[in-house]
């Protein structure tokens, strides 16, 4: 694993991750793959073989609230099109524009829609012509924001939380799958924000969700030591999303 270092790497190779390393994600863009790491010090992007760091974005602790009651970190990484989105402790989402090759990465936009720290970001290629949603961001208050990516990101839907953090989020065929701190997994219609499925899935916080897009299977892992797999589908009659337990 490539390390997160305070001044950037001096040579490639395996080194220990910094304490409090927050997130890591392979960003598979159409034309290149980048490895993105976040920590309390900053955001680092590496070529896929870990040989070169192509971008370093330092987190400035002066950006934190004046009374500095909040820790500074970045969390939540996703790629969509030629953009990479990274979430921040402040609730902002940084959008980076990635060139075909080389280190000329530019911070193109800062999305300010979340009042609480970002927890996770998910994306999928835009599905049908009328369903434009391709990025969803989640935060500590449980709020979900659905966006359309572009030269300027557009906020399409806000799905309010209910006092519980949303720890993990996935996007599939216009369905937002969200895992919450109270053990629930919820499925929403991305374009309208309507709740379609509510699963009392776990007895402790959901830590992670993963989705197999080809077959519509959703996996939820939680602190209650259990892992569940759900089959997602759209009902033919109502067009509404359904979920069935597989494991």
């Amino acid at each position: 694993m490539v390390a997160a270092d305070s001044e950037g790497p001096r040579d490639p190779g395996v080194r220990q991750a910094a304490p409090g390393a927050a997130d890591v994600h392979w960003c598979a863009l159409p034309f290149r793959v980048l490895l993105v790491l976040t920590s309390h010090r900053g955001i680092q992007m590496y070529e896929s073989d870990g040989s070169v760091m192509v971008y370093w974005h330092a987190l400035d602790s002066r950006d934190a609230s004046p009374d500095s009651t909040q820790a500074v970190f970045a969390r939540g990484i996703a790629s969509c099109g030629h953009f990479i989105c990274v979430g921040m402790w402040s609730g902002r989402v940084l959008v980076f524009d990635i060139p075909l090759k080389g280190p000329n990465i530019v911070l193109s936009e800062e999305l300010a829609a979340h009042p609480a720290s970002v927890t996770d970001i998910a994306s999928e290629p835009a599905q049908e012509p009328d369903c434009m949603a391709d990025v969803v961001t989640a935060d500590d208050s449980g709020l979900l924001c659905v966006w359309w990516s572009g030269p300027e990101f557009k906020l399409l839907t806000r799905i309010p939380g209910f006092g519980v953090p949303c720890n993990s989020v996935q996007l599939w065929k216009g369905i937002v799958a969200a895992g919450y701190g109270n053990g629930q997994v919820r499925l929403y219609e991305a374009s309208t924000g309507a709740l379609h499925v509510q699963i009392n899935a776990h007895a402790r916080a959901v830590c992670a969700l993963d989705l197999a897009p080809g077959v519509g299977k959703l996996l939820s892992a939680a602190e209650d030591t259990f892992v569940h797999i759900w089959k997602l589908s759209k009902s033919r009659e109502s067009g509404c999303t359904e979920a069935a337990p597989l494991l």
Partner: protein
Amino acid sequence: MSVRTLPLLFLNLGGEMLYILDQRLRAQNIPGDKARRVLHDIVLTMFNKSFIEELLKPQELYSKKALRTIYDRLAHASIMRLNQASMDKLYDLMTMALKYQVLLCPRPKDVLLVTYNHLDAIKGLIHDNPPLLHLVDETFRQLIEVYGCLSAGEFQLIRQTLLTFFQDLHIRVSIFLKDKVQNSNGRFVLPVTGPVPWGTEVPGLIRMFNSKGEEVRRVKFPHGGNYVIAPKEGSFEVYGDRVLKLGTNMYSVNRPMETHTSGTSKNLASQTQQSIAPNPLAKEELNFLARLMGGMEITKPSGSEPGFRLNLFTTDEEEEQAALTRPEELSHEVVNIQATQDQQRNQELARIMGEFEVKDQPRWSASKGDDLLAMMDEL
């Protein structure tokens, strides 16, 4: 990582330390008045007003070394002395107990209930000392003020920060092994039965809705655990039923207090590697330690009351043996603050001490400053 974690870490570890010392003082038949003196002195030092104020400021958790140094000082705040082996064992028991409590907290916010359980018990230990009780109640109120308005997300981060602090600690504790809450490899057993956390539904139900928001179908599924609904929420007030048992005193006079440190070495390899790398926060840590200990008022033992040595083991021979056989990786090196040799640090210390309001303590004089530096030299 959360900047609100240190007070909870400090107070909970302090609480565990008092439980263990109380048990050992009784098991070793230390005279009642001496035992009472020790416990009251430690509580007085722990809840010192300026100390608690420093603690409650938002800040990063510092290293294990720094924290261990504070508990060394705290344990020696009175007429009691502990050998290195006993201090090591005390610290092992404290940290593993808190790790267990934090890990098993149903909700992240319940870490606060664990803290309040410790404070309730501490008040029980000093119930015959009204000024001391008042001091602890003051801290209680300040905790409620600071933590009362934090969100579930912030508590999640606090809990995560605490668990990261305890990562890779797998010392086996007899009581835990006996109660089958810890496995022989040092890992804790996570129960899959019992009440769900307050605010969580019992797993096993899928509800499906149409686009109008009307529920159209319910499907039950087998969950695998055996959970029931939570009966009621614990109280977060100064007085109240906490409901949660984590953080209450698990030691009675007869319960075993052994720890097993052999065979835990392989997991600490990564930990030792990390401690070799230069720590850029070292200077900050030392300044912080100096500030905290500057706030710690250490009551010097009066001439008439001789000190005594407490043994965390059953016999002196056992204590000696434990010191010899302790694995290298688990040796807690206490921070050596060479205050007198560093001009800059001297000035820093003097400035910090100058900041403390001392009008109520006429004992303060230049010699107290020397005492502080001398105290640090002994560490």
